[in-house]
Each structure stands twice: as C-alpha cells, then as structure tokens.
C-alpha cells in the first residue's frame, strides 16, 4: 500500500468555556480561521474539509455536521463529518489523514466542535439517549454510571486506591493552569481537594471528572510537497490506528481496554515503532476521568497493567518527567468539549513538537508524541502518532 506523507501545518483553538455566547457555527469558524491564519493559508488553498462532532444531542441540532458546515469552511468543497463518540476528536484527523495520504487532496482542513451547554439542564441527560431502549434506558443510565462501574473494576483488579487515581486529576489541572484556553486550570489543587469533592457516583467524585464545555479546535493537514513549501517545521502524522470492542458492556473486560491496545498496535506498526516506551516522548491519552488516563496508558502499552499509577506517583508523567502525560492539562484541566477535546490533544502535540507550547513546553526537544481518544459506547480507541 503506497501512501503519501501527511503533515500538520497549522492549528487553532477557541477558549474552552462552560457556556459560550457563540453558536457552534461561530466557534467552528473561530477555530478554523485561527488554524488557517497560523499557517498563512486561506480557504482558496483548502481542497476538502473534515468535521468531527460528538452526539448531535449536545448542540441540539440533528445532523450537526451539516449545521456546522459553514463555520467549518465546507462551502462548495468535499466535506464529511465523522463520528465515533468521544473518540471523534482523534478520529477526525485520521479521516483527514487518509484524505491526503490517499492522494485525493493536498490540503485538508480538519475541524472539531462541541457546544455541550445547549443541552438543558445538563449534558449528562443527552447520554440517556445512547443506551438500549429496552434493556437499560429504563434505569436512567448516564456516563457517570459507566465510568464508576469501570473505575471500580479497575481499582479492584489491581488494588489501586482513589488516592492513586486522584494524583492524575491534580497533575492535569495543575498543567492546565499554563494553558491560555483552559477552563479548569488550578496551580494549587491537591489530592485532598479531589478526595473531598462531592461524590457523584462512587468511586467517582466531582474533581475526578472533566467539565462539560463549549469549544472548537481546527488543524490544517498538507501533503509533503505542500507542507515543505508552507513551513520549515512540519509535524508528520507517522501512524494512525482505531479499533472497536463489543458495544455491549457486559461482554468486555472493564479492567483493560483491549481495543485501545489494538488501535495502538496498528499505529505503532505504521510508524515503525518497536519500543513505544522509549520512542514516544509525549503522551496525550484521553482523560475525561482521571482513572482513564491510567487505563489508557496501560492499553497503549506505555505502562504495565495496573502499574500506571506508580508512574504518576514517581513523577514520570509530570511535564518535566521521563514521559510527560497530558502536558496540555488534558480534558480534566483544559476542558471537555468532546470532539474538540480530542483534537486539542493533536494541536498540543503540534505545538509541543514545534517548540511552540509556551509555558507548557516539555523540555528536551521532544521528537515524537502520541494522542489517543476513546468513546462510542465506551469501546472505541483512536490513536495518532506524530513526529518531527
């Protein structure tokens, strides 16, 4: 299979906020226009547009891809929305990647948006609509349920405590204090703050969870010959992977995300990575809840099973540690406008690998990073590996 090299050449993001005045279209436009300006390109240069947004229910517009299309620059261009739930933000750049890698297009704008505040009174209510209508919905499930059940299983399987897990929330919210777009950065937060926050669905407390947010992120992808003309610092997409497990949650292993492992293996193979723990310098795993960062580090084969909490305790995953994890501040700190939060991780790797991450910059001139998201019915893994 011959595929062309694809680079990220520009990125832009709005602030992540609790409730934006801007409509979803306006948020998409802000991010798109910032991404284009960052690489001095215009819509005339863009040949196709890929858009990612999670359940239509958040924005409250069915066929949200079509609704957002004008803000995403899709006018009279080949345009496609992809959707794999929470995994969307790291899937939509994969979709953009194959648009370019295949040779179909030289320049593709990739946009991800979510305006979760439209759902009233709380975005959790939207999740009621994703479950089986006869077997589960009568119990009024929401995502806190799912995470609580999975987190408890993960803790029990490996003997992990809530304190171990709370360290992740502390690290990410502290990291986010350096992110100009962040909603929940806090340089002084402690493990006690997390443990003492309100219990939502045991073992999940309020500060174990990322906030509901509005926001948008966009990146520009270009084929090699175009990328080299536009910038002397292209960041290459070296590997991509995605994988689904059974959609029925009683039929899968809740302590270990096998589907994330398979997605990672696909991406590692493509990128020619044999020893991911040595060859990946920065990791942006999906962290909508603090234990998920640990769960995903294990699925990505970057930690042994049940051992990810030890890496956090040892400081390995701090911004200046041996393997910085969520130097952006992640979903826990920057915010979680679902699809936009995933693409934010791609934008973070772009800035980090170019040495443009400002106060968030990981030291030591990192050369390769991995971003991952997770979603659908809690059983999809999406992975992108980027390098310079």
């Amino acid at each position, binding site marked *: 299979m011959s595929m062309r090299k694809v680079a990220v050449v520009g990125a832009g993001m709005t602030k992540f906020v609790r409730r934006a005045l801007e409509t979803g279209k306006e948020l998409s436009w802000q991010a798109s226009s910032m991404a284009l300006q960052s690489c001095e390109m215009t819509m005339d240069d863009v040949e196709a547009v890929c858009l990612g947004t999670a359940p239509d229910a958040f924005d409250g517009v069915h066929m949200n891809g079509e609704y957002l299309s004008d803000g995403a620059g899709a006018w*009279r261009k080949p345009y496609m929305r992809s959707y794999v739930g929470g995994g969307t933000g790291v899937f939509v750049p994969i979709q953009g990647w194959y648009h370019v890698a295949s040779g179909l297009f030289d320049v593709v704008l990739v946009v991800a948006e979510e305006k979760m505040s439209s759902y009233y009174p709380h975005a959790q209510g939207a999740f009621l609509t994703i479950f089986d*209508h006869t077997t589960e919905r009568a119990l009024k499930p929401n995502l806190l349920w799912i995470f609580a059940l999975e987190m408890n299983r993960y803790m029990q399987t490996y003997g992990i405590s809530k304190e171990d897990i709370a360290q992740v929330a502390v690290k990410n919210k502290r990291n986010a204090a350096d992110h100009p777009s962040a909603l929940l950065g806090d340089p002084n937060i402690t493990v006690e703050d997390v443990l003492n926050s309100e219990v939502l669905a045991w073992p999940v407390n309020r500060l174990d969870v990322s906030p509901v947010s509005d926001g948008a992120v966009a990146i520009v992808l270009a084929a090699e010959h175009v990328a080299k003309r536009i910038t002397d610092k292209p960041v290459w997409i070296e590997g991509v992977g995605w994988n689904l497990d059974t959609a029925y949650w009683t039929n899968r292993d809740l302590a270990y995300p096998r589907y994330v492992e398979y997605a990672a293996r696909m991406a590692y193979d493509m990128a020619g990575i044999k020893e991911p723990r040595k060859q990946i310098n920065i990791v942006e795993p999906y962290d909508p809840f603090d234990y998920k960062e640990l769960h995903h580090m294990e699925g990505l084969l970057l930690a042994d099973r049940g051992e990810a909490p030890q890496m956090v305790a040892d400081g390995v995953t701090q911004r200046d540690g041996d393997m910085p994890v969520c130097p952006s501040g992640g979903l826990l700190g920057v915010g979680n406008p679902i699809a936009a939060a995933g693409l934010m991780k791609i934008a973070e790797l772009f800035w980090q690998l170019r040495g443009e991450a400002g106060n968030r910059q990981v030291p030591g001139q990192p050369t390769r990073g991995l971003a991952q998201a997770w979603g659908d019915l809690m059983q999809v893994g999406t992975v992108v590996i980027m390098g310079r």
Partner: protein
Amino acid sequence: MTYLEREPAAPKAWQDEMQVTNRYTYGVAGERFFRAIKDESKILGTRCNNCEHTYVPASLFCERCLDHLDEWIDVGTTGEIVTFTHLYVDYDGSPLLEPETIAFIKFGDGGIIHRIESNESQQIEIGMSARAVFKSKTERAGSILDILHFELMTS
C-alpha cells in the same frame, strides 16, 4: 391519532420518551439580528465585500472566505417570494384545521422562511413582494416569531 397509531397491523412496541430540552445561545451575530427584530422591527444582514455577498439572516463570518463580517445592513422588511407551499397536514399526518402557506422571502443574497397571510382575493405567486408584519413590541420575545407573518403586497 398519528398515522402509525391508526395502522392496525403494526407490531407491538415499547413506549419511551426521550426528554430533550435545549437552551440555545443566539450567538454573536444572532444577538444583534434578533435584537434588531425585537427592538427596532428591522431585518439585518451582514456584507462580505470580498465575496460580494450579503448574508440574511446576518452571519458573523463569510462562509465562502471565512472573513469576519462587521458591515451590518438594514435590508428592509419587504422581500421577494422565491418559492412557497401550502400545508394541509401536520408533521404526524393530522389534517390542519386551516391550511397554512409557507414561503421563502428573499433579502440580500439570502432570505427568511416564514408564514404568509393573505386575504381571499390575493393569489400568491412566485416573484410577488411580501412584507413582514411584526407582533406588538410588548409581545416580542427575541424570536423569529416576533415576525407574525409576511403579507402579500398588491402592486
């Protein structure tokens, strides 16, 4: 009774409701567009001079070149009927007591979709002019329904 409920051969079904309530922000452009309707009985558009295109309803940005739009234009309250339909049934198949006429009325390079009220002597035709009839100011809520309907202009 909806069409499906009237169907005697339909399979047994589980009944459920999805409670969906939304609270939408108007957006940056929407705030100004709907305030102009509510407070000033005006319909506003925004102009992109790059693309020579006037957006109605007003947009914060040009969808063609993604430029920020800040030239606001009062496009008046009378536009031209581009197309129309007469409605006889509701969305669930129930007959409407009174048929309704819906039209696309052109303003700038865009337009507004709204109801048409006409008296019996007036026959609606594509190309006719129609004028916005607003609710009284005290009844307006910042909604597209602050425009009660459009009325046909007989020249």
